[in-house]
């Protein structure tokens, strides 16, 4: 049963002749932390966005706890659309560009989806929001507008907003890539706590150190396919394929340059 927590079956996706996903299948157990690396355009973000059907794949199915996410055909029925929204609420997503809502202050960013989607009452939503904002160390910023926050604070706010929905799975799409180097740490601290709490996570990242320390599994993608898969330490120290070796070499060079 545990192996069927999240199942991706034969996902295909092309954009204008570029194959973003080429028959990708993946089984994720509850509590597993999976890191996805690969060169840009390799399909890693598309994979993440296919999981919550934000980018519906052309072919293939996604199952979360035995529920079909989205649809097996291209058109959603009304019932499927409704179920999809329920399932999305259980899958917290964090974006590279934060995508916090600038017209709502920090507290409202976390409260609003709880009211609208989870249909919680205001008092519950607020106390939940305050508790979670405290966990991401934004408790002294609750009245602030997102435009006034640093990148790291915005990303922590985005994580808090997702956590307030009580997700069972977190999808993180390069959560630290848009951050100044000195702000990466504060976001990683929050993510580490999530790992320690047993959250199931799919994380697209370039933070290889973070991946090797906290990942249960690492996927290397290229050309829309999973090329290598296994324990992060093993894969990063002993890459089998030429493509991964090249990729790691490039990353090394760039990090050296900085």
């Amino acid at each position, binding site marked *: 049963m545990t192996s069927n927590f999240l199942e991706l079956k034969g996902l295909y996706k092309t954009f204008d002749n570029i194959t973003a996903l080429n028959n990708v299948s993946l089984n994720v157990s509850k509590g597993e932390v999976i890191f996805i690396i690969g060169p840009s355009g390799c399909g890693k973000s598309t994979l993440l966005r296919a999981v919550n059907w*934000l980018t519906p794949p052309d072919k293939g199915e996604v199952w979360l706890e035995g529920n079909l996410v989205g649809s097996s055909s291209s058109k959603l029925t009304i019932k499927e*659309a409704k179920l999809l929204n*329920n399932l999305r609420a259980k899958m917290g997503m964090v974006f590279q560009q934060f995508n916090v*809502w600038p*017209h709502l202050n920090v*507290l409202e960013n976390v409260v*609003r989806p709880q009211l609208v989607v989870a249909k919680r009452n205001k008092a519950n939503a607020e106390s939940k929001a305050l508790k979670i904002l405290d966990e991401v160390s934004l408790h002294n910023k609750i*009245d*602030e507008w997102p435009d006034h926050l640093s990148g790291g604070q915005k990303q922590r706010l985005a994580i808090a907003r997702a956590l307030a929905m009580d997700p069972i799975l977190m999808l993180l799409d390069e959560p630290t890539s848009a951050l100044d180097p000195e702000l990466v740490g504060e976001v990683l601290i929050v993510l580490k706590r999530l790992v320690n709490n047993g959250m199931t996570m799919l994380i697209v990242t370039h933070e290889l150190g973070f991946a090797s320390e906290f990942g249960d599994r690492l996927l290397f993608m290229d050309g829309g396919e999973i090329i290598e898969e296994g324990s992060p330490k093993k894969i990063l120290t002993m890459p089998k394929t030429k493509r991964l070796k090249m990729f790691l070499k490039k990353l090394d060079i760039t990090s050296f340059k900085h």
Partner: protein
Amino acid sequence: MLEYQIFFDYAPILLIGFWLTIKIVVCAIALGIPLGLFLALGRRSNFVIISFLSTSFIELFRNTPFIIQVFLFYYVLPFYGLRLSAEYIGVLALAAFGSAYFAEIIRAGIDAVPKGQLDSARAIGMTDWQAMRNVILPQTLSIVIPPLTNQTLTLIKESAILSTITVHELTMTGLMVQGETFRPFEVFIMVALLYWALNETIATIMRKFEQNTKKNRKAGSIGNSSTTLKKSTSIK
């Protein structure tokens, strides 16, 4: 030379016409903006029929002269059994004309909101409509205030054309007074000043409103959390 007496003698009747202009424009905007929002969303709809109808409506009203639209409304509606007074027909024509432009303004405003905003709203489980209402449209508002104001001013000026279908608004009243006094210069100066005063007032109010919305977001920490929370519920 100007005959100043005309200003005093005919100001009351012109003000009556002016009042009708205000009423017609207010009604046309009250109808036109919601219709424009509806058309803007319709044009973006995934349902082909809805998007086709919305697009056709917008293009039809944007690409034909307003005076022709007014004539069509005035002569064609009664033919189909819809007998309305000229004032109501004027309101409908003005609302339809305005809504086409409002729709395009709102559509551009929606498109100007970064795509990631919709992504984050959908990813957290909002329906399209919930995402529109809670995330996209509030951000659209501050973008569209200046062009919407512009269009409103245009609508006020275009309302003068309703004089051609016997609506006794400001321009029509001006024409009548002119016919009585043969003093076009005095009369139309008064008419122009009244239009100008109305537009200037609206432009000033909207500028203030725009500054306020900007200031609010830039103000940083404003008050304690309970006041901001109250505001958020009233917006909801």
